[in-house]
């Protein structure tokens, strides 16, 4: 068994920042990550980091924009913390050597971004995330922080009192991908989950193959509720074959969207008569899908984004990287033909419910980054607001776990007297663990309380049994089949368009997936670098996460932010200024709500119409 004060799971922007903060606070911290840190998906972020740095801009404006962008589903204390801390934390990155783009006077450049009232997106070329990730990894190397890379974290070692608020987390169980050994890691002071997004729950996503929502699922099963999972951001222009993102820059420069009939549908079919292609992400995404659904898609799948008319010179000057992307990943030359694009899953606004200090309702369990929901993004994330979230809340979680006093949080977590139970919605199928009786050891079984060591040991044993079971089974279904089915269901029915019928259908398919998963087997008999095994475990996590997304999408009968419901075309502020929370409750998802906090430090954010 390994032992550290603080264990950070995941080495993306959030995980690295958390580890550095805990280390600076004097903790013995270790990072456990299934990928080597520099492989984390934070490296894919292009746009930038929002921070009110310049004279004339201030954090209150940033907070206001974020709140408005969130469609008033962000919690004010979180939003304000983000806006207040972002400048300092961005500057710290600069001092750590991050190569930001520069102005003539040598200061960092900032550019305008959608939904921002001031150009406050700090960037480093078109590869901000790459630089952020590498700069922080460098600091981790400098500090000699221990990194267990290519260790796959399977489960949390959490005590199993009935009320999650009474539980505590004492460590993790992980297996060394290279050798296949399952080992326990005891965390004396805290476990910080920073496992990134759940994009692989969808068939078509801009997220990496590694974004499988492991942290979500582990925390969920340990008792921490998942919050606002129905809010998924879809990006309108991703390449059909891989999901690689084509940045908004193309449309910004004047790129035009055409359907298979050569119509400029944004105008000709009246989706956005004023802003056309430059309408907000969700509007464009819905327009594209409508075209495809009505038979005007190219190859019944995508639409065309044409930039040829901009001229070679301008394209080479401003959009050169787009040319490379289209060429390398789609085999299309953007100078001679239009590029195929379609909407792709891009970001999950929801996640593990945490407070401003990154703590969940389970004592000693923290979450930060895309896997967490503080919530700053509410119903919709503004471009450039995820990276500051990583560094601000990553840092806070690290410090708090290391024992620093960050003050009493205003956001509450877990069950409490301020929550309200879900009572109305009828579910098409019983969600939750399939065959609880033959459970593969992932549901808490109540009762036994042991000391921390015992807990970790016990969880290790369960995990070993689970691995053995999967490996020993010689027949059944392979995870790839289940995963594909799940992803297709999500992309077909819980995508940009959501109807009651569709979401219910998705829930039924998810149920089927769960049942099939009972017979899943790992074909690869080797313990060495068994990616088959790893992906099989990930698929299980995806099922849990997908289910919460679909459940959230079903119960929330309104149109807010990125969540669109066919039958409910308006934002219902009277009823829905509240977060959806889903708790695993020993294998039976339990849905409840907690009101949004709109009262900030010295003002209250009054919901207004979100129009730009």
């Amino acid at each position, binding site marked *: 068994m390994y032992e550290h004060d603080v264990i950070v799971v995941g080495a993306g922007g959030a995980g690295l920042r958390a580890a550095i903060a805990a280390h600076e606070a004097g903790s013995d911290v270790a990072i456990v990550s299934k990928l080597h840190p520099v492989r984390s998906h934070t490296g894919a972020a292009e746009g930038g980091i929002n921070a009110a740095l310049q004279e004339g801009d201030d954090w209150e404006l940033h907070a206001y924009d974020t709140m408005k962008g969130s469609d008033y589903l962000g919690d004010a204390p979180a939003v304000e913390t983000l806006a207040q801390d972002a400048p300092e934390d961005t500057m710290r990155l600069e001092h750590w050597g991050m190569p930001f783009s520069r102005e003539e006077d040598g200061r960092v450049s900032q550019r305008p971004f959608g939904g921002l009232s001031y150009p406050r997106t700090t960037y480093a070329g078109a590869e901000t995330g790459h630089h952020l990730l590498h700069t922080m990894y460098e600091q981790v190397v400098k500090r000699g922080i221990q990194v267990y890379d290519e260790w796959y974290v399977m489960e949390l070692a959490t005590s199993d009192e009935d009320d999650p608020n009474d539980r505590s987390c004492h460590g993790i169980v992980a297996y060394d991908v*290279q*050798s296949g050994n399952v080992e326990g890691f005891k965390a004396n002071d805290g476990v910080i989950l920073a496992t990134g997004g759940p994009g692989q729950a969808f068939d078509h996503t801009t997220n990496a193959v590694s974004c499988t929502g492991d942290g979500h699922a582990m925390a969920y099963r340990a008792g921490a509720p998942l919050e606002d999972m129905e809010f998924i951001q879809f990006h309108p222009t991703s390449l059909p074959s891989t999901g690689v993102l084509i940045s908004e820059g193309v449309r910004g420069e004047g790129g035009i969207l055409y359907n298979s009939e050569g119509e400029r549908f944004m105008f000709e079919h009246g989706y956005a008569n004023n802003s056309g292609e430059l309408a907000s992400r969700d509007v464009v995404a819905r327009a594209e899908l409508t075209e495809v659904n009505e038979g005007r898609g190219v190859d019944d799948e995508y639409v065309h984004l044409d930039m040829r008319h901009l001229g070679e010179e301008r394209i080479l000057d401003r959009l050169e990287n787009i040319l490379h992307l289209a060429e390398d990943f789609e085999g299309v030359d953007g100078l001679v033909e239009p590029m195929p694009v379609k909407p792709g899953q891009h970001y999950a606004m929801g996640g593990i419910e945490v407070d401003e200090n990154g703590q969940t309702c389970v004592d000693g369990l923290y979450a930060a980054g895309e896997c967490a929901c503080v919530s700053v993004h509410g119903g919709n994330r503004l471009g450039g607001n995820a990276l500051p979230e990583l560094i601000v809340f990553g840092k806070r979680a690290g410090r708090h776990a290391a024992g620093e006093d960050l003050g009493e949080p205003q956001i509450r977590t877990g069950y409490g007297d301020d929550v309200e139970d879900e009572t109305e919605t009828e579910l098409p199928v019983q969600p939750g663990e399939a065959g609880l009786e033959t459970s593969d050891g992932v549901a808490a079984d109540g009762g036994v309380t042991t000391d921390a060591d015992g807990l970790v040991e016990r969880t290790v044993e369960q995990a070993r049994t689970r691995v053995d079971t999967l490996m020993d089974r010689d027949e059944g279904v392979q995870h790839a089949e289940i995963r594909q089915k799940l992803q297709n269901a999500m992309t077909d029915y819980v995508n940009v368009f959501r109807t009651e019928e569709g979401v219910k259908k998705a829930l039924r398919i998810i149920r089927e997936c769960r049942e099939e998963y009972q017979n899943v087997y790992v074909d690869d008999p080797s*313990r*060495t670098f068994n990616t088959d095994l790893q992906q099989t475990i990930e698929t299980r996590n995806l099922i849990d996460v997908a289910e919460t997304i679909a459940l959230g999408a079903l119960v929330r009968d309104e149109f807010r932010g990125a969540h669109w419901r066919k039958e409910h075309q308006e934002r219902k502020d009277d009823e829905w200024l509240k977060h959806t929370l889903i708790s695993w409750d020993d294998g039976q998802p339990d849905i409840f709500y907690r009101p949004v906090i709109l009262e900030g430090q010295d003002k209250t954010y009054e919901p207004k119409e979100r129009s730009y």
Partner: protein
Amino acid sequence: MSQSYNRGLIEDFGRWKEFSAGMWAWIFHKFTGWMLIGYLFTHIAVLSSSLTGPEAYTNTIGGLESLFIVRVLEVGLLAVAVFHILNGLRLLMVDLGVGLEAQDKSFYASLVLTAIITVASVPTFLDGVTL
């Protein structure tokens, strides 16, 4: 970590067909360099015949030069030297950071020039040789 498989170095030589210009240039340069230093030692040895006396020197040189094989070797030496010089110049440029994009072309140019110079000097070198 469990066992792993080390494929060793053989593969490099197995893959010679896939070598790039820069690799060939490196190999040739090495080869020619070694030839040249080898020659330098031999050369001094031959010249040392002058220590015995002028006659010996003239005879040794003349005797050697009358052999066809020596003449052929000399042409070879010329080729080797010319290539080493030309590619050496190319390397000096590379060291100064000049024309790095054209490094493959300049390697091919060295080869071609070497061939031309060598062929052109064959008459001079083989002049008056007795078989």
